[in-house]
């Protein structure tokens, strides 16, 4: 059975690699990832080496003894105490209270890890930018487009009839396509990592970067811990794509159309990740529902860790990592079972047009 599945995956790859679609989607991912890397590079140089803080927002407090200013960068770097030191004890308490409200609101989630300060310096640049790309949600949309197209095109061209009439087995065919999507996503990640390495080296050797080290291990980290974190991150990201792959495929089987499948998947994603959470924030009770949403759990699942700064910046209630794992698993299984059940039962008709 495994051999049969591998043969089917090989066949799917034989077809897919000859299409433009996966290469176009890869190009989009690479462009966005590179835009982050070179964006941080540009900001670093524009701020004359003060750091890679992209946050313009700052907090100012005028006390009896001094006036202090706190930036997101200070907050994320753990320099808050140093900044508020000139204030009196009472004033420091007031500032800390106000900062706990100001921080989550003003400092973007993008900057929740110390690695962001090394966005164009190896080794953190390897996955740091990829993490930011995933936080935008774009890769999930692209992977849904891929999975929807992989199956939907077969409906459009009418080739599903021929494939099934060759005795391949329906669930085996779907499984091969879904596994191929995960493999393609892995391939995208590999390409992005390699290009990030190349770009980081370029960023280190081209002017005006003389004197900037090509490799900077974050304080407290070792090569082993950094590489282990990368490995874990790549694995978590791939796991996080699985429910979206199933979602794209499910809507295609439901509608038997690539266009409708992609549209419904993207609408569902946008609604679930961008529209529903703000609505749920209206009341504390509703906010708990946020913990069950796929997007919140995926975001939590792929997060790089719980540094002090990240914890400080966490605003709304977010699910913990085990819950995130289970929720992603549940979404994946439910959609997988639904799409297999539907695909197994549906009659296959002729071409529906692309």
């Amino acid at each position, binding site marked *: 059975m495994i051999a049969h599945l591998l043969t089917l995956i090989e066949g799917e790859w034989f077809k897919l690699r000859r299409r433009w679609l996966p290469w176009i989607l890869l190009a989009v991912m690479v462009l966005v990832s590179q835009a982050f890397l070179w964006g941080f590079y540009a900001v670093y140089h524009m701020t004359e080496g003060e750091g890679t803080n992209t946050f313009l927002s700052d907090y100012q407090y005028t006390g009896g003894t001094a006036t202090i200013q706190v930036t997101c960068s200070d907050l994320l770097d753990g320099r808050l105490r140093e900044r508020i030191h000139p204030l009196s004890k009472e004033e420091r308490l007031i500032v800390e209270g106000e900062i706990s409200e100001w921080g989550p609101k003003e400092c973007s989630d993008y900057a929740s890890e110390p690695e962001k300060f090394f966005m164009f310096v190896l080794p953190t640049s390897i996955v740091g930018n990829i993490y930011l790309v995933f936080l935008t949600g774009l890769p999930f949309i692209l992977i849904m487009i891929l999975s929807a197209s992989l199956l939907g095109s077969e409906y459009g*061209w009418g080739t599903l*009839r021929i494939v099934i*009439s060759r*005795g*391949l087995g329906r669930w085996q065919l779907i499984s091969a396509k879904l596994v191929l999507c995960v493999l393609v996503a892995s391939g995208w990640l590999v390409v992005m990592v390699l290009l990030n390495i190349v770009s980081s080296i370029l960023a280190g050797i081209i002017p005006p970067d003389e004197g900037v080290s090509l490799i900077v291990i974050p304080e407290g980290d070792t090569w082993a811990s950094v590489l282990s974190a990368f490995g874990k991150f790549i694995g978590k990201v791939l796991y996080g794509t699985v429910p979206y792959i199933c979602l794209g495929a499910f809507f295609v089987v439901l509608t038997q159309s690539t266009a409708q499948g992609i549209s419904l998947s993207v609408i569902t994603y946008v609604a679930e990740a961008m529209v529903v959470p703000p609505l749920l924030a209206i009341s504390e009770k509703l906010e708990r529902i946020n913990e069950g949403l796929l997007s919140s759990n995926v975001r939590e699942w792929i997060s790089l860790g719980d540094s002090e700064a990240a914890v400080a910046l966490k605003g709304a209630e977010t699910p913990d990592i085990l819950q995130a794992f289970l929720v992603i698993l549940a979404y994946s299984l439910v959609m997988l079972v639904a799409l297999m059940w539907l695909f197994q039962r549906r009659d*296959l008709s002729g*071409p529906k047009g692309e």
Partner: protein
Amino acid sequence: MDEFVIQTDRLTKRYKNVVAVDDLSMEIRRGRVYGLLGPNGSGKTTTMGLLLGLQAPTSGTFSLFGYNHGHRDLLRRVGALVENSSFYPYLSGYQNLRYFQMISGRGSEGELESLVDRVGLAGRGHDLFRTYSYGMKQRLGIALSLLGDPDLVFLDEPTNGLDPEGMIEVRELIKSLGDGSRTVLLSSHLLHEVEQVCDSVTIISKGRLIAQGEVSQLIATAGSEQIRIKTTDNSKALQLLSTPGWIEDVSMDDDSLLITAPIERSAELTAALANAEVYVAEMVPIRKSLEEYFLEVTGRGNEGLQ
């Protein structure tokens, strides 16, 4: 040994209010070319779809090679061209066949070259499928149905879109496929094609089995055949031939007589006339064609269903 490659038992497929296949029970023996005939919408393609596992029957059962359906590996012994030839437009004809060969896990690249040649696509095999004419697409579909040397081949309107020369080539190809142990189930609306190519036919109308058997037998049992004769005295012959019980009908038709009677009794006919000093100058047996038979039985079938 499984004598029947296809057996259906009260096979039914219903779509809401439409019954596409209705209680269809048929048997197809190994090693012949079978024609599946029926008017448009009679359920031919649905029947093929059911047998190929593309659609699920509403009720009834069928078996392939003596095994009940649902056995996925059975379809590995089947090749099919159903309705239109649908392939991946961004792949060449050769790559399309290579893909299907890859996932079937059978055959060699050498087989592909010979298949492409066999169906008349030599020289165009490496062109993209989207650049093919309708006839070329059909040829590629036929090549696919033969990929892996299947024991049973379904061909749904295989000569659609082919030029006359192509039609002749494909008919010859189909005939040759039926030699030996391979079975071909050919669905076609071109009745003369079926008559030329097929050994046996199954006729369905409105999803129901109307007739099944060898082409020659079906025509023979379709009713009495006719004999046209010219005699030295047609009026006297008309009188004489109105008497024997084995002659169903006799009538004047211009300068000849049209007699409805079994052709094998022609000798008795001439003897009877000669005894009465009426001599036959010309005698032509008029055999029914499959087309006439088809129109007759499907018309009857339709009436029966109404």
